[in-house]
């Protein structure tokens, strides 16, 4: 691709990194392979390629922000594919729903970092060499440089130069002198900052990669009064990096002693606070702690975040003799901001004999809707009017039949397979043999439901809160932070420090006095060097 001359007027000027030069003809045989490799390497590590890769990276990231991403919101991806039956699968094949894990994104990324290494390594070598060598000798006539001036002194040339040296050193210039001339240099930190910036980028990438390989994340739901121990089996959901030792998770445990939620009068949330008793090893003593939305609890590299909460009514199932067959707090899934929640209770063991010609088991299930503050709306029926627990109520219906739990197929605890279940009419506060009942856990007279097969009863006599926690561990987070801080330091240094040189050359003029030529050159952009040079030259002349 060649740009027309009118659009690229400066293309002939030299760049900071030389573009690959004109190609020499390829040598034959094994030399040819090496020539090709070297040419490819030079092409890859040139600044132009790096620029193109940068822009490619920016462009590749754009679909990641416009289309739903699996890593961020998998449900939305599914619904997008469902809504676009032709386009969806096509996008999926192009990894457009996993842009940041896509091979093409990774390829750009990898090439960019190879290019970065190819830039940092030789430049570091060059910088080290430059550090060891003194600033270059003064030119014959320093005053003819971009910044240049002269002054006249009665001192001998060697004396004039000798006087200039301490002055420049006091102003923190690096000075080399050979009697009749002097070279001074300042701002070599600029390149150091530049190298630090690019090296930190590599370090940052390493930290991100290691974190992804050794980190884990999972969610867990804990009802007030119960505990969670950090091992794989206790998680409701768990993902981890390929190199994580899954058996070696830190053995902390958390007991949710109580959960506090407060709300504004209009129902918007004010504060959430989970009070926990934590043990960092199983034998140790428990220490109390609090987990709030912006304040996680931590143990080593693992952090426990509060991400949700809700209500768990207490369900008790008894048979006709009063024997208890089921006794559990069942978390209900909140579905609006006033915590109207859906509850599903499965009671596999009921003591009831198998029934019917097919000898189907008689297992019990209850589905219902829980309202922390129950109100009977004339149009919408029962609703929750406020998120706090002020007048708890539960509409519930009962089913009997086969829960299909024994088939070995894993089931969602919050969903009921009703294919082999049959609804049974129940008796309770709402009347005799109704399809559904309304229970009030706070009222001892209105919290029991009867009329189940075999004279069994259901009682809902208590409500506790639950909290959902997310446990995250990224052991290389610290490395990423350090890299980011170094990156910023390098960036500021490389943009703020300017590299500049001053040369002096003294000689006898025709009138017998000494003429000192002063010249200066700034290798960086910005025009503040002119002022600095004038200042130095004036100070030198005053000597």
């Amino acid at each position: 691709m060649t740009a027309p001359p009118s659009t690229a007027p400066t293309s002939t000027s030299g760049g900071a990194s030389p573009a690959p030069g004109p190609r020499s003809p390829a040598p034959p045989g094994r030399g040819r392979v090496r020539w090709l490799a070297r040419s490819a390497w030079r092409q890859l590590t040139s600044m132009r390629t790096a620029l193109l890769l940068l822009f490619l990276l920016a462009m590749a990231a754009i679909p990641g922000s416009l289309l739903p991403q699996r890593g961020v919101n998998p449900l939305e991806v599914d619904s997008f594919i469902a809504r676009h039956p032709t386009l969806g699968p096509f996008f999926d094949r192009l990894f457009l729903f996993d842009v940041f894990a896509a091979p093409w994104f990774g390829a750009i990324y990898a090439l960019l970092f190879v290019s970065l290494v190819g830039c940092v390594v030789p430049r570091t070598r060059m910088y080290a060499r430059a550090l060891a060598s003194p600033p270059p000798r003064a030119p014959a006539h320093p005053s003819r440089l971009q910044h240049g001036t002269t002054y006249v002194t009665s001192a001998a040339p060697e004396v004039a130069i000798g006087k200039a040296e301490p002055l420049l050193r006091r102003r923190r210039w690096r000075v080399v002198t050979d009697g009749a001339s002097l070279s001074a240099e300042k701002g070599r930190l600029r390149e150091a900052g530049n190298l630090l910036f690019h090296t930190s980028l590599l370090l940052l990438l390493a930290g991100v990669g290691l974190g992804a390989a050794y980190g884990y994340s999972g969610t867990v739901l804990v009802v007030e009064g119960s505990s969670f121990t950090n091992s794989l089996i206790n998680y409701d959901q768990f993902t981890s990096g390929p190199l994580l030792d899954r058996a070696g998770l830190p053995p902390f445990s958390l007991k949710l002693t109580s959960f506090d939620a407060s709300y504004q009068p209009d129902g918007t949330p004010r504060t959430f606070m989970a009070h926990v008793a934590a043990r960092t090893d199983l034998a140790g003593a428990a220490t109390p702690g609090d987990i709030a939305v912006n304040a996680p609890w931590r143990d080593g590299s693992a952090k426990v975040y509060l991400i949700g909460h809700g209500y768990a009514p207490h369900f008790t199932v008894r048979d006709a003799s009063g024997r208890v067959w089921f006794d559990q707090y069942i978390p209900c899934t909140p579905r609006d901001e006033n915590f109207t929640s859906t509850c599903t209770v499965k009671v596999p063991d009921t003591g009831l004999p198998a029934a019917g010609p097919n000898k189907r088991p008689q297992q019990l299930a209850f589905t219902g809707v829980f309202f922390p503050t129950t109100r009977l709306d004339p149009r919408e029926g029962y609703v929750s009017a406020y998120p706090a627990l002020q007048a708890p109520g539960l509409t519930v219906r009962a089913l009997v039949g086969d829960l299909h739990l024994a088939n070995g197929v894993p089931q969602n605890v919050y969903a009921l397979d009703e294919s082999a279940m049959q609804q049974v009419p129940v008796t309770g506060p709402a009347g005799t043999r109704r399809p559904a009942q309304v229970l009030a856990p706070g009222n001892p007279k209105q919290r029991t439901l009867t009329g189940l097969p075999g004279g069994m009863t259901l009682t809902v006599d208590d409500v506790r809160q639950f909290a959902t926690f997310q446990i995250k561990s990224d052991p290389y987070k610290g490395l990423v932070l350090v890299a980011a801080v170094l990156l910023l330091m390098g960036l500021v240094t490389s943009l703020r420090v300017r590299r500049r040189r001053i040369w002096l050359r003294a000689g006898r003029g025709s009138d017998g006095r000494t003429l000192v030529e002063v010249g200066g050159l700034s290798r960086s952009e910005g025009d503040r060097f002119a002022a600095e040079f004038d200042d130095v030259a004036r100070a030198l002349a005053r000597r």
Partner: protein
Amino acid sequence: MPVDLGLARLSDNLLFVAVVCYSLAMLGYAAEFAFRRRRAGEPVVERQPEAALVGAGGPPIAGAVPSGEGAGQQASERDDDRAGGAGRDGAGRAGAGRAGAGRAGAGRAGAGRAGAGRDQAALAGKIAVALTILGWLAHVGSLVARGFATHRVPWGNMYEFSSAISLVAVTTFLVLMARQPVRYLGVFVMLPVVCYLGLAGKVLYTAAGPLVPALNSYWIKIHVVAAIIASGVFMVGAATTVLYLFKERWERRQPVPYPDEPGPGVAVVTRGGILARLPAAETLDRTAYRVIAFAFPIWTFAVIAGAIWAEAAWGRYWGWDPKETWSFITWVIYAGYLHARATAGWRGRRAALVALTGFAALFIDYYVVNIWITGLHSYAGV
């Protein structure tokens, strides 16, 4: 704590005052820019002002500008353009000397006739600066009043972000003006600022109220402030870059290079129009670079601080949320700009286009992402 309605109203009124001041200042800068004569000691240019510019907002000073023709004066104008640009660069003193000496006589002759026009234009510029400072004070007052009215930092929703970004842009312009002769930038900074504030007041306006819980963290003071400062400064950088592109094109189209050849024809110079009065493209380019190089580390810091906040709030420092993605894109493009300036074949026009692309990405990051793309940053309150 309840919102102090009196202070909230005061804040709204002050912002209105600021917008009025900025708009008037914009007119003043435009007038000065269009009708400006040479500064003292420089030869005078005489030219009929272009009708388009008067239409664009110049008050009717047009009648006061004398018109003059003559090859000698046109030539002096060419010389002067080169000298003015070079002198400001500090790069070519020789050029300045040549032009000054050679044409001083012709220039002084014209100075007497054009004196009145120059004074009026300079006066317009000075009034514009005074109005900008007045508007700036009202703007600061508006933000402070909003903060006290709501008992929180006054940058908690899109309306307040836009106002704060504009304030930073105006501040950057004022600071720049104190250090360099950049009054010519006035129109081009005030225009986007007035547009931003108009957008803020008309479309994004949100009544004073408390913060949404997600923003209730001390990181709002760190991350959001850094993002606002960087954006405001980038805005000034983008305005300068646009000017650079126009001037660069104008310079490229000058058929005869200065100075030793016969001066260009009348048609060529008048076609340059007001662009001739901008500083040399090189100066504009360098100013744009310095402004962007100042903002880039601040933007980097804003992104890093955002990652730290995300880690504290959501448990991960980076999750490719749309806001994060566009911050990343913006960062990558501006990083590309800094590299492009040091690459043969990219510096100059192409680098400037990269900088403008970066600003476009920043705009998307602020407005498009908040309004049209849902993500974790969708607190916008639009």
